[in-house]
């Protein structure tokens, strides 16, 4: 009976509301984050991730309150990302009841921040989020680079090498989002996920592109992901988490039922 593959619903939070966009635009409202978290917990989510998509300082206060409200009644791991730039941001979210924080842009501008954070709080609570986009052309060897600003700016950094570096600096987990797939509902970039998963020691969460339950299965079997993250298929009631787990189990994947 090995370790279960995790299903992680992700709540994109803007100004205290859950929203979901397609490739970071066309935002739709998907409700109250506390209500959503409560429902996912009852459905058997293995963890919940909150992403503060605007990450202004006002929003961070709102986010801390959301986390506080959820953490007092939902007893599974909670991760918070978006706008985590300093040690004080991490402390604040952990004090509000988060178990992990996810660091994205701040790691790119200052990789030592990941090391500092891991030393201070332990690797177990430091997730590094990587937004990657394919830059190779058809017929070339696959290559992905790290993008910032919602996928608009490239950094020129190779995504697979970057993941290995983040592992080395103390990340306890990698949250890997394919910018090409995010919001498209055509499935994860499984080749990207597999290459990153094989390049690091730590668990990898696949993200970006889930449109049906086969995509979750492929993320684990083809992408070798340790966990799969999805947003819209759960928010808008297309699938329930227990349904996703039952399907994954039928396909031979170990899950927590």
């Amino acid at each position: 009976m090995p370790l279960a593959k995790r299903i992680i619903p992700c709540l994109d939070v803007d100004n205290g509301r859950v929203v979901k966009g397609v490739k970071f635009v066309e935002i739709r409202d998907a409700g109250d984050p506390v209500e959503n978290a409560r429902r996912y917990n009852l459905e058997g989510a293995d963890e919940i991730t909150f992403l503060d998509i605007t990450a202004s300082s006002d929003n961070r206060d709102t986010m801390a309150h959301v986390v506080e409200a959820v953490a007092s009644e939902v007893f599974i791991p909670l991760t918070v990302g978006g706008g985590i730039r300093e040690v004080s941001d991490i402390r604040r979210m952990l004090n509000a009841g988060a178990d992990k924080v996810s660091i994205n842009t701040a790691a790119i501008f200052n990789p030592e921040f990941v090391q500092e954070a891991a030393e201070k709080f332990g690797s177990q609570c430091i997730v590094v989020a990587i937004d990657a986009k394919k830059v190779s052309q058809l017929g070339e060897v696959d290559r992905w680079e790290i993008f910032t600003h919602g996928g608009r700016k490239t950094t020129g950094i190779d995504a697979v090498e970057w993941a290995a570096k983040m592992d080395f600096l103390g990340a306890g987990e990698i949250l890997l989002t394919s910018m090409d797939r995010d919001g498209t509902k055509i499935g994860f970039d499984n080749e990207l996920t597999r290459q990153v998963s094989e390049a690091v020691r730590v668990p990898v969460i696949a993200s970006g592109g889930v449109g049906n339950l086969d995509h979750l299965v492929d993320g684990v079997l083809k992408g070798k992901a340790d966990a799969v993250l999805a947003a819209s298929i759960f928010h808008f009631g297309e699938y329930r988490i227990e349904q996703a787990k039952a399907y994954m189990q039928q396909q031979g994947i170990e899950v927590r039922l």
Partner: protein
Amino acid sequence: MQTIAVVDYGMGNLRSVVNALNHVASKQQQVVLTSNPDQVMKADRVVFPGQGAARDCMRAIHDHELRDTILAAAEQKPFLGICMGMQVLIDYSEENQGTDCLSYYAGQVKYFGDFHQDADANKLKVPHMGWNNLTQKKPHPLWHAIEDNARFYFVHSYFLDCADAQLIAGECDYGFTFTSAIAKDNVFALQCHPEKSAKAGLQLLTNFVEWDGQA
């Protein structure tokens, strides 16, 4: 009013532990997060959590002058060690080029390794992170109403190799079998995080806040 002291020695985020205990505590019980040795000694039961590296944990225990308090509490009252709190109760940890610990029970804490594999040579990620089955090795009041092999949430890179097989209350499999729960008199200690293990975890904490400390 009874008190449940959560020992705060500056290692890790204890908010989750306090939240979950508040959720299961009775109206006659108060959960207190404290680094004060007197308060720990006055409490009716003690929870000893911890996260981070072994050397930092041991240093923090010394800096807060909590070593004797922790060991005295472990002799006297219902006591629950969680994660690093379980690990530092042992003799010695391999972490940080070797760290002497509290020697409440005998054995060693060891690293899973950078190239950890299962029996079929599949790569296993380290840390061991996520929900795994906890196999109960002996009856204990803290297992009350928890199914054998129920899944609990784990996150750790080092595991406990207990020298005294009689103390092993639970095991987990990750490439090999390792000790994930210890029961010694009034002490119960867990590698996983009951405060983050949904229903099974809350049941275990409920059992703890009701436990009289008799095995």
